[in-house]
């Protein structure tokens, strides 16, 4: 057995440069040198206890951004601070909040974190600070895990309540009368990780904040907002839209940055004719193995739960012969809280060597010092990529970031254009509180929480007509002056902030008779393709087969199995235009935007063998279709040169694939927030059409953006398909399932035709 030899990051990179097998796959190495700190003095009025506690921690002056934060807060000005990872961003809000509580002990603050895990983590941090201040300040997390015994105390006496939007939405706001002392004295609302509040989730949270502000107004408080965000293009705009409050922006971080080495790694081509590269998952497995052997603590990011579980399965081979070795772990949403807590602890104390994660760990969970980070593919946007990269070398030491490109167009684009990642400005984060469905749901919640009067507005919205509509629906009752909630329903339970589907599917392991247990949960949309009967579901590297899916009751019953394949499922989609809000005619094409209704039908799934990734079987999925009303941009055109329907279908599919890959280059969204679907004969005009729609009921404004920039997207797609080294189409350009003769040529022809039309 080969002895594992510990190496430093720099030594390892050097050895790779000398290894011809590895070297040829590294397309680019970029080193970002360290950046010195910029300091400012403590504010004069900073409370002596805070000063003492800071000095005790070796902080004798502030970074400039921390000082700016304190000054804005003192003036009563809401603000947003944009700070890189490990820049001491939490002091941007701790200092003003603690100062306020020390000046007036009746003051209260809410800290809002996007996840429970983050709140728990920040609590430890804050409590340490308070402890060294030696002052009577009570801070608590309040979430689903909080024991009923201390809830009463938190409501009455907690100075700082750390919670998440979901808990605020369904656990606090609908019961605000139990929180009188909090709402009467609320001075600060802190929103950490602002950049995560985008898309559907952000749009929901924007309403939760509007409801919160409404309750504050009822109790006579007018809190200041403090937001902190990773680098995005529009932090101020996002904060203002989210909180419906004017913000100042702090964008110059005074914190120092450590040396970072970026490797851009492209898996070798194994099938030159088809341009097929070795699987990035396998490549990451090998790189992670090298890092493991060198004793470098590493975080591996993968884009999906399935990939996380596959990598965990592969990597655990490394420790198979060691008994009870927990040094390689998976981490993703869907694990139970205790499981996650244990993993976070293992990362901090070093007993875990490699953690494989979905973007759950992108956020600022404090996992201490990791030396390296591997990205399995491009996470979809620059802000996320930098967040992931920030996971390595948090505490200013030399860090290694390896980007391993997958086969997708976007992945290949990024690995060939390192400047895109390293140099370009990050994307916009969009939210759309005007989404009428989201708005209506929260309007119900707001009515439940406090009756609207005949003159009330809701946030920036004029809602009297909508309230009248809710009266017709039978949930509101109009009296002389007010709209009162008059129903036995609890509206907050009817909305989930996190996903388009409103209910989660619970995953139940019934392997052992008499001791069935819940091992996780999943949103309904994902469940359609991941938890159908016969699907292989992976959890902590263990394979389960779904034996029964009770769609009505939202329960999936699984049994532990040991098979050498995983499953992959397809959705068929049909679109119907309901109204056209915008349109542009071209000679032989037409661009439109408006409301559409969508029917998604899960069709078949495939069984794919591990390692070789060959298709070894398939089956039908029996899940009822999902109906959705949303917004879409569409581009219809006259069939060119009388292509046969088969040719047209394939060309259109290839074009949709290419375009879909590039949308995230232009708009910050999760890949799944926006879908591109080809229809050879669209229902509304019987013409070949590409639909680009928001994958969320009611739409969230993404496809409307596409309407304005579709020509640039098409232009970028053509270039990329052109330069792709494959002969006849591959997963990196027009998709792998294309059986078209001269596919690339046809797709390029179609796209060029469309681009030409649009000029």
């Amino acid at each position: 057995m080969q002895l594992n030899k510990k190496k430093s990051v720099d030594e390892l990179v050097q050895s790779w440069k000398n290894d011809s097998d590895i070297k040829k796959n590294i397309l680019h190495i970029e080193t970002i040198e360290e950046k010195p700190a910029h300091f400012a003095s403590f504010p004069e009025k900073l409370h002596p206890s805070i000063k003492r506690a800071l000095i005790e921690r070796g902080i004798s002056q502030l970074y400039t951004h921390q000082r700016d934060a304190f000054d804005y807060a003192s003036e009563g000005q809401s603000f947003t601070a944009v700070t890189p990872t490990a820049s001491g961003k939490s002091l941007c809000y701790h200092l003003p909040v603690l100062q306020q509580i020390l000046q007036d002990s009746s003051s209260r603050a809410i800290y809002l974190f996007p996840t429970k895990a983050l709140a728990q983590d920040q609590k430890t941090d804050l409590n340490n600070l308070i402890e060294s201040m030696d002052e009577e300040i009570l801070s608590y997390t309040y979430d689903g895990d909080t024991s009923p015994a201390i809830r009463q105390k938190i409501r009455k006496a907690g100075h700082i309540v750390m919670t998440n939007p979901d808990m605020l939405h369904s656990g606090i706001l609908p019961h605000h009368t139990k929180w009188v002392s909090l709402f009467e004295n609320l001075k600060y609302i802190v929103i950490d990780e602002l950049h995560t509040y985008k898309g559907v989730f952000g749009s929901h949270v924007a309403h939760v904040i509007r409801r919160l502000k409404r309750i504050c107004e009822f109790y006579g408080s007018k809190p200041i907002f403090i937001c902190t965000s990773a680098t995005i293009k529009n932090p101020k705009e996002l904060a203002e839209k989210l909180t419906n409050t004017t913000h100042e922006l702090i964008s110059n971080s005074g914190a120092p940055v450590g040396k970072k080495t970026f490797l851009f790694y492209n898996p070798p081509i194994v099938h030159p004719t088809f341009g097929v590269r070795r699987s990035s998952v396998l490549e990451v497995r090998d790189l992670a193995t090298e890092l493991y052997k060198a004793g470098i603590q590493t975080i591996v990011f993968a884009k999906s739960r399935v990939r996380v579980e596959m990598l965990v399965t592969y990597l655990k081979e490394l420790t198979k012969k060691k008994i009870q070795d927990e040094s390689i772990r998976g981490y993703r949403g869907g694990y139970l809280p205790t499981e996650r807590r244990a993993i976070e602890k293992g990362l901090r104390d070093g007993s875990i060597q490699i953690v494989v994660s979905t973007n759950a760990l992108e956020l600022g969970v404090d996992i201490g010092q990791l030396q390296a980070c591997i990205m399995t593919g491009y996470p979809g946007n620059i802000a996320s990529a930098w967040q992931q990269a920030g996971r390595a070398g948090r505490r200013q030491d030399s860090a290694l970031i390896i980007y391993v490109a997958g086969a997708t167009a976007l992945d290949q684009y990024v690995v060939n254009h390192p400047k895109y990642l390293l140099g370009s400005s990050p994307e916009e984060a969009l939210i759309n509180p005007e989404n009428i469905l989201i708005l209506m749901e929260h309007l119900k919640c707001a009515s439940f929480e406090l009756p609207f009067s005949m003159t009330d507005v809701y946030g920036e919205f004029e809602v009297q007509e909508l309230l009248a509509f809710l009266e017709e629906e039978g949930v509101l009752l109009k009296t002389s002056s007010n709209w009162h909630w008059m129903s036995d329903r609890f509206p907050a339970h009817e909305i989930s902030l996190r996903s388009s589907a409103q209910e989660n599917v619970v995953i139940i392991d019934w392997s052992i008779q008499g001791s069935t247990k819940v091992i996780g949960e999943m949103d309904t949309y994902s469940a359609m393709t991941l938890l159908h009967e016969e699907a292989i579901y992976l959890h902590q590297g263990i394979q389960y087969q779904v034996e029964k899916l009770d769609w009505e009751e939202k329960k999936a019953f699984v049994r532990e199995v040991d098979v050498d394949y995983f499953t992959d499922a397809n959705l068929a989609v049909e679109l119907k235009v309901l109204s056209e809000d915008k349109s542009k005619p071209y000679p032989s094409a037409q661009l439109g935007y408006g409301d559409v209704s969508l029917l998604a039908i899960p069709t078949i799934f495939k069984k794919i063998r591990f390692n070789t990734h060959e298709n070894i079987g398939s089956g039908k999925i029996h899940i009822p279709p999902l109906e959705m009303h949303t917004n879409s941009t569409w581009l219809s055109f006259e069939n060119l040169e009388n292509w046969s329907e088969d040719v047209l279908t394939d060309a259109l599919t290839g074009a949709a694939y290419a375009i879909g890959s590039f949308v995230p280059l232009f708009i910050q969204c999760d890949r799944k927030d926006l879908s591109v679907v080809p229809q050879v004969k669209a229902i509304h005009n019987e013409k070949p059409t590409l639909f680009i729609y928001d994958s969320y009921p009611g739409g969230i404004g993404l496809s409307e953006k596409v309407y304005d920039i579709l020509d640039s997207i098409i232009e970028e797609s053509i270039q990329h398909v052109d330069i792709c080294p494959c002969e006849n189409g591959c997963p990196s350009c027009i998709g792998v399932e294309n059986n078209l003769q001269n596919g690339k040529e046809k797709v390029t022809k179609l796209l060029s035709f469309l681009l030409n039309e649009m000029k």
Partner: protein
Amino acid sequence: MIEMSYENKILQLKKMLGSKKEKVVEKPTFVKPPKPSYLENWVKCGLNVIENDFGVVFKREVMYSNDYKHGLYELGSLYDAIDKWENHRISHPFSLSFDDDILFFDTETTGLKGVGTHIFLIGVLEAKTDGFLLTQYVLADPSNEAAFLFESKFWQTQKTIITYNGKSFDWPQVETRWTLHRNTLPKLTNHKQIDLLHSSKRIWKNNLEKMKLTTVEEEKLGFHRKGDIPGFLAPIIYADALKSGQADTLIKVLYHNEWDLLSLVTLYIHSTNLLIETRVEEAATTLTNVGKWYGDLKHKGESERFLSKVTEHFEGPETGLAYYYLAIEQKRNGQFVEAAIHFEYAIPHLDIKKQIKAYEQLAIVYEHQLKTFEKAIRCALDGLKLIENATCFNASQKIKLIEQWEKRIQRLENKIIS
């Protein structure tokens, strides 16, 4: 067609959404709401209108004589029950004295939780010199809520409020509604509370499957409702009464509430009898439960009185738990021989977890107090066998237990050898 109308609805909604125009917001001072248009309709159904500073509220009153019989008991027997507690001289959280200002209390609401749930009916029943007075207040409409709450008089002198599930439901709802009007109404008084759901659970555990008040009425209080409106319909009926202005059906909710309150009185009387008198016609489980409750309250004399009633008058499986609790009581009092005998009696009739507990207690008594190591080791071995075959523990619990017990056995073996 249905699909289309849903889609149209959304398009319609989008058009309704306006943008806010700047407006000066004036601070609300209390404005007395107008009277609802249906006052007369509701009066025709037997309700009275009361007007106070905050608006209007409906009220219904019924006077009952002391000899009015509801199920098995006359209401006036409440005085006998209080008398019994006065003579009992044992402090118990459910005891009443003649100093208590007693108010039986129950509400009907439009939902189950949260600020959007209104109380629309407050019913109280109090003892008066010549009988019992039922008073029901009905919310005229949500804008007249302050008037409704004010009239309940919960802001006046301290009462002893007797409820069924009121501690976790009705009273917190009153507090919530009060908070919403805290700038208008006088401060809510802190009242003493007795929750009969809690006592029923203690008394009838393992005896009644459901603790719904109607179940208790039928099984224990000899009262059967006729033409009762099920509670879950109350929210719809109230909302309908507001919209239609008709109160005919709403009156049935008032009757429902009235029965609830009458049953609270007889339930209190009946529970008192069970807590004070050791009647052998009661089920063994009930007597055992009461004995256990006194034990938990540290009234060992009372506890033994109830438990030994079971062991003396019943036989076989019914006595298992009584012997078990009695033995625990006796061990606590240093009566080790008796405790050991009673644990042995109990074991064949207990569930597996309690059997294991009993073997453990026996092993301890035999080893440390009675010094009969052979007996101790027999109990330890029997206990271990049970643990090994048990299905009620998970793997890690089991391993831990087995370890503990094996240690005990080892120690006992060593003691026997030396």
